[in-house]
């Protein structure tokens, strides 16, 4: 797919440590001017994956996240930045972590957040996704956050409504805010991702977290090494997606060797039922991260996991809770990153309509 290669070939040079002095637009109450993001400048005002977000926009989101972190560190964690805005989270899949993260992000910014879950909505009565979304839109939504078990569902929704759409995870496709929070977490520890070796290990075939991270990390200049069971590796991973800088490792040791970051993916038990894996015991022994393997990475290498973890399977408990793990920090950063995303989209929604 030559066209995607073009996109990568023409990408901007990866930025060094992000500057805290960004361009200033209008200043919402409670957010300091130096951390104010530019309005969304992409071809559309949705966040569906990271392939359509420029490196500059990613940098701006991460810079804005700094400011949001500051808001979250205050004694009174509340700003009126999105007061009067309505954010709807529409979740067709169970997810405590991501839904609560979006909800908190919206509420800290002062927005009204309405949570709709599949079981509570009329979807179970056979109403179509489109009708559900149109009904919600008629109640005036400023940002729609959607998680859906079908890949592409947020794209379908975005093509049928005016409100900005944030993809909070679609099937086995993408999870862009997770990739952003991972980028943020890596940058905050290592000062940047350009030139860093990031090992992503596990089920690359079905992981929406991995897909979005591949876009985000390669755009920002990381060297990504992937490893997992051959049954769970996508075909033509290293060339067909136009993802420069992604290498398949031949072994766990090779993948982890001298890595700056080891990112473990959650293994779903249904992969075993579908014949991808013989057993979880064997998976753990061959593909799990333990202290011995982590020693192969750079001293102080970060250990990451999008959660929820299967401790003792893809990651041993001592590593999961060890000094190098930043897994809880990922969760905390998730709120700040989502604040930045919601703020950018809602601000655009205010001036762009």
């Amino acid at each position, binding site marked *: *797919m*030559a*066209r*995607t290669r*073009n*996109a990568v070939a023409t990408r901007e040079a990866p930025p060094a440590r992000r500057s805290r002095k960004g361009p200033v637009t209008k200043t919402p109450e409670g957010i300091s001017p130096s951390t104010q993001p530019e309005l969304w400048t992409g*071809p*559309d005002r*949705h966040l*569906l*994956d990271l*392939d*359509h977000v420029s490196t500059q926009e990613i940098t701006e989101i991460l810079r804005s996240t700094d400011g949001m972190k500051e808001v979250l560190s205050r004694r009174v964690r509340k700003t009126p930045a999105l007061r009067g805005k309505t954010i709807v989270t529409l979740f067709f899949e169970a997810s405590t972590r991501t839904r609560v993260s979006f909800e908190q992000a919206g509420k800290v910014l002062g927005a009204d957040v309405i949570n709709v879950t599949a079981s509570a909505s009329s979807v179970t009565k056979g109403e*179509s*996704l*489109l009708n559900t979304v149109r009904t919600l839109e008629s109640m005036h939504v400023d940002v729609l956050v959607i998680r*859906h078990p*079908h*890949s*592409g*569902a947020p*794209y*379908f929704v*975005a*093509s049928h409504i005016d409100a900005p759409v944030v993809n909070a995870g*679609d*099937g*086995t*496709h*993408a999870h862009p805010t997770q990739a952003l929070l991972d980028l943020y977490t890596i940058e905050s520890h290592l000062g940047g991702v350009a030139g860093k070796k990031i090992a992503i290990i596990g089920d690359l075939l079905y992981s*929406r977290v991995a*897909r979005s991270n591949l876009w985000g990390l390669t755009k920002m200049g990381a060297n990504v090494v992937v490893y997992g069971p051959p049954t769970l590796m*996508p*075909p*033509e*991973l290293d060339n*067909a*997606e136009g993802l420069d800088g992604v290498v398949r490792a031949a072994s766990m040791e090779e993948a982890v060797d001298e890595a700056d970051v080891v990112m473990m993916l959650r293994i779903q038990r249904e992969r075993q039922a*579908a014949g991808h894996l013989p057993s979880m015991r064997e998976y753990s022994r061959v593909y799990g991260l333990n202290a011995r393997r982590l020693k192969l990475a750079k001293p102080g290498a970060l250990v990451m996991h999008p959660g929820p973890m299967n401790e003792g399977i893809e990651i041993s408990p001592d590593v999961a809770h060890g000094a190098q793990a930043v897994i809880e920090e990922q969760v905390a950063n998730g709120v700040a990153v989502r604040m930045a995303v919601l703020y950018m989209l809602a601000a655009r929604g205010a001036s762009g309509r």
Partner: protein
Amino acid sequence: MAASRKGIAIIGGRVIDPSHGIDRVCDLLIENGVIEAITDGSGDSAIDGYEVIDAMGQVVTPGFIDVHTHLREPGEEHKEDIASGTLAAARGGFTTVCAMPNTEPTQDNASVLEWVVRRSAEVGAVRVLPIGAVTVGRKGETLADMAEMAAAGAIGFSDDGDPVVDANLMRQALSYASGLGNGGLAIMNHCQEPALTRGAQMNEGAVSNRLGLAGWPNEAESGMVARDIELAALSGGRLHICHLSTRQAVEYVRTAKKRGINVTAEVTPHHLTITDEWVLGHHGEAVAAVDVAAYDTATKVNPPLRTRDDVEAVIEGLRDGTIDMIATDHAPHAQTDKLCTYEEAANGIANLETAFASVLSLYHSGAMELPVLIERMTAAPARFLGRAAGVPLGTLEPGGPADVTVFDPDLEWTVNPDEFASRGKNTPLAGTTLKGRVTLTVYGGAIAHDFSRQGAAVDA
């Protein structure tokens, strides 16, 4: 046609009738529903009293035959019925369509087939020949009453979108049907190994990986094609491969024909012309990033759109005769069946009205000679039907039914599904420009579609 007229004279067109190797400018005379004569430079006296149609600059061929059509009646008339589907066929230049049995109730017994035949005679704009189910309810468990269905007019048997998975049942079906009709009737199998395509949404490859959609690998088709070829050899039956879509399957059929095995194959217009990159939206044009045009449910079809390499292979297979014929797999759906996520969307493309113009691009690009392309839509499917239709089809031989299609090979038009006669508006070609248009369809000596009259009014 005015009652006082003697008949229809289509004059001055380039007549291509591959069944007789005819390819020259001449006149075609139609009388009493049959082809009266093909004459060179007939004078004014010869056409005196005929309704004269000037086909200068146009191409005159036998009416197209589609061996794989879904008319949805009985049971799903909100998607299509025999009247709307056959009108769509006439608009597309088809004078004979073979109706697949995924109806409700299923066309798995003589009484349903008889109903379809009777209904088609009443309301059909063109000829409808029914295909019976191989197994009861298309469930793949028990053979349906194929001999009774053959007597009721079945031209072949298929479980339609469901393959006959059980190898022994497939063997028995091939063997049993070989004793029906004149020289045996074909088992038309949709080759798809179900275990390899669980949850599959599109072709397995770079695009499916990029979109996170579960893949349908080529080998799920070619593996069953190989199996069925062996079973055809074993049973001595007639095997027909539906909508062949992969390079590997083309190779298996090519080899099988060299071995003398009784196998035929069809390919759809979409598998000949567009690729899985169309699932990314923008009519297959290169995109830097996936945007909201992606996951275009109009591209969801089974078997799925394949890669450029497969498209090249099926074109070559069609050109060299490995693939015998073009069949539309016309699959009309209601709007709500496609206005949903890709995973929820129904498979299928409403094809009848764009099929010919689509494949004519193979002629315009130089990939195929026009007479060869016409052969694949007329004489080849007619050979497949043999004597099952009861009358000679796919030919302009005098004395045969006057099924004639006239088209302007260079007329450009933009596809607007709202103008389709079909109730199915589901096509990935909406908004694209096609070159070549059917201008006149004559079925049984009567005009079934005239672009210059009702066509122009409706299509303007």
